[in-house]
């Protein structure tokens, strides 16, 4: 997993976000056992207490659960993972729309541009024989 951090948000919330992306994208599969806090902290290059805090919050949300001796696991509840995916997507969309509005586009134009963009993507895909 590639960990990346920005300077304007708390590290624990960025960890939560990135682990969520890992779960939603299937890098951490439903029911899969997660590496230990220490290993994850070492991999991400962050303080173990900060990683622990992120895990505790993910557990409280229900995306992750722990079994006393066996460790921590990704939830098997696919509806919950789907909901997390939707939430992440909505956040991306809000950021995108805000940026486009700043550029001076209107909502209708943004939708039209998106449609045009995805039509072109499809053409390119066919072009490459995919």
């Amino acid at each position, binding site marked *: 997993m590639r960990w990346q951090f920005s*300077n304007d948000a708390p590290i624990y919330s960025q960890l939560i976000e990135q682990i969520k992306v890992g779960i939603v994208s299937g890098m951490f599969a439903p029911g899969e056992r997660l590496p230990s806090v220490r290993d994850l902290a070492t991999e991400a290059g962050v303080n173990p207490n900060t990683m622990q805090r992120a895990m505790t919050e993910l557990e409280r949300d229900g995306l992750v659960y722990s079994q006393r001796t066996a460790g921590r696991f990704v939830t098997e509840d696919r509806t919950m993972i789907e909901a997390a995916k939707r939430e992440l997507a909505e956040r991306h969309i809000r950021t995108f729309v805000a940026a486009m509005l700043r550029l001076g586009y209107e909502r209708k134009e943004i939708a039209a541009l998106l449609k045009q963009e995805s039509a072109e993507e499809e053409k390119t895909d066919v072009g490459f024989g995919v």
Partner: protein
Amino acid sequence: MSVLECNGLCKRFGRTEALDRVSFSVEPGRIVGLLGPNGSGKTTLIKLANGLLTPSEGTVTVCGRAPGKESRAAVSYLPERTAIPTWMSTAQLLEFYRDFYPDFRMDAAREMLDHLDIRPGQRIKQMSKGTREKVQLIMVMSRAAQLYLLDEPIGGVDPATRDYILSTIIGNYNPEAAVVISTHLIADVEKVLDEVLFLNRGQLVLQSGVDQIREEKGMSVDALFREVFKC
């Protein structure tokens, strides 16, 4: 009990006030950054904590005791300059540390040296500066100490070595022990820290959690540091 505690700690060198009424405590399981510009008193504070200097006023205690023979057994210290005997081989250095410190974890040290492909027969003086610093850090982190005092552990090394040193510190994390890291390379260490202490001209100007700073100020510790210490 706090691992490290300072109360009204002062240190004067002649007329220079190197530390001026510094009070704070460090709890077990915390990794704390001691941050400040050059000459702000970081090294003086670390030397007071391990008994290499004595306070002019106030107190400093390690695990409830004044620095001395017993506290030294609980403190693992990485000095500013490389201080391992350069004529020794790595194998001799391991034995040297084992003889000196009952808490030395020989297996942990061997494993870390092995990981870096440092052969037991290699002499310290044949090593590059970066390798020497890595070896010294491995020795320091291989002790099962209660307090690790690391004075500028990432100062003179390349970014890859820096990453290695930081991941060694995280990998050896022990919830019973505390780590104090002094540095001015804040951007590199801030993700590793729980909290930071800002020193300026011998005075403690801020003690706060890293994520607390990011949450309350919406900026990194590095950015806050640049703002506080703007020249």
